[in-house]
């Protein structure tokens, strides 16, 4: 077994395989980045909708709550299949990467909405009332009163979620998106031994995820104490 590894090691690190793996890693990063950025924006909108008070908007509020509660409780694989088959049957001819990006965004926005809402709730209710009394609109009071205080509470768990999320994109390989895991399967099918291929894939994931999780831990250390001292 060991001589086989020694024989294959130069092969997997051949020029074209390296480019292939590099592109796959970029796809993984791209999927995660799209999910995180678009997901954060949608999550903010969901939280804002949930904070509205007018009676007319009540159905919209329920929809926002329903969206968050459902997508937090459905496995990523099932969401992926649902989105994939919905687009297939509706006849829209989207690239697979986009389908994966949409499902990733759906999941991310649901989880991030919960994180952002918890952060907003950590700001005392009086602050919002005071802002409203001074005739700040909902968006203005969130922007000038709540966000400046809540971001310290939101950032550490949101960052933790981003790191988790990079690993969840591995499931996109199941609909045939060429990201790291799928690249591993392709190289394995080309005849390289599974141990070597998936070992390399694991190491690449680790190289992406570990620095980010260290950064997240540092953020938490730096932001958390000031949160306690203020309370």
């Amino acid at each position: 077994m060991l001589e086989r590894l020694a024989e294959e090691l130069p092969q997997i690190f051949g020029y074209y395989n390296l480019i292939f793996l590099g592109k796959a890693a970029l796809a993984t990063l791209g999927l995660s980045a799209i999910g995180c950025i678009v997901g954060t924006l949608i999550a903010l909108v969901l939280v804002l909708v949930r904070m509205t008070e007018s009676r007319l908007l009540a159905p919209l509020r329920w929809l926002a709550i329903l969206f968050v509660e459902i997508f937090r409780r459905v496995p990523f694989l099932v969401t992926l299949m649902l989105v994939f088959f919905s687009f297939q049957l509706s006849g829209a001819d989207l690239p697979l990467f986009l389908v994966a990006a949409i499902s990733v965004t759906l999941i991310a926005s649901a989880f991030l909405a919960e994180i952002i809402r918890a952060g907003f709730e950590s700001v005392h209710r009086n602050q919002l009332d005071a802002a409203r009394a001074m005739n700040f609109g909902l968006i203005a009071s969130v922007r000038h009163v709540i966000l400046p205080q809540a971001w310290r509470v939101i950032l550490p768990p949101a960052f933790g979620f981003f790191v988790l999320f990079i690993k969840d994109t591995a499931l996109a390989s199941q609909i045939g998106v060429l990201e790291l895991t799928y690249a591993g399967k392709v190289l394995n099918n080309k005849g390289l031994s599974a141990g070597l291929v998936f070992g390399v894939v694991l190491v690449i994931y680790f190289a992406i995820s570990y620095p980010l999780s260290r950064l997240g831990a540092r953020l938490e250390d730096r932001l958390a104490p000031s949160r306690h001292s203020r309370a």
Partner: protein
Amino acid sequence: MDYTLQFGQVWPYLPRLLSGAGLALQIAFLSFCGGLLIGTALAAIKAFGPGWARRLINVYVVFFTNTPQLVQIYFLFFALPDAGILLSPYVAVLIGMTLNAGAYLTEIQRAGFESRKQSEMEAAEVLGFSRLQQIRYVILPHVARVLFPPLSNHFIIMTLGTSMAAIFGVEELTGQALNINAQTFRSIEVFSVTALIYVALTLLASVALGLIGKFAFRAKMRLA
């Protein structure tokens, strides 16, 4: 877009989906228990053990929490046969999820061990509690209260994670859905019913865990 939804074709398969849901819960429960054992042992070693053991545990935790569970199971399932170890899909998924859970639960439990207060232990000693009584009446209630919410949260995440087993051919909820989809081609219907079953499953689990946490451990929990 001239597709009409026909849920009628999915209903006959509902018992199969539900039995799949049972299997999903079983996988989640077994690997959670296994992970809890690993996590408790390793967190205890991390709190009281020698330095080299602590570093070794750190390597395990950092490696498993920073790589995707799917690829870990791929490794177990496709690479171990080269070394002469053949695992059935069910066993491979179970081992992979247990190892993964062990790493995350070590991290969670560590926080619990760190939250025990020296003053409380000393108070118990002054009151004449034996070591066992100290653990039973002082450490455990305290640690359980702190740890129960994050642990039950992780159980829910793991329940969702079991859907990964479908990729290896285990016929749990998602696996059944894939099979039924292949038989009926009612993809949207099958997967939306599956999604609803997952929602119901995790809601049920979080309400049950919330009640247990509230009454058995007096933990601060949000129901549902």
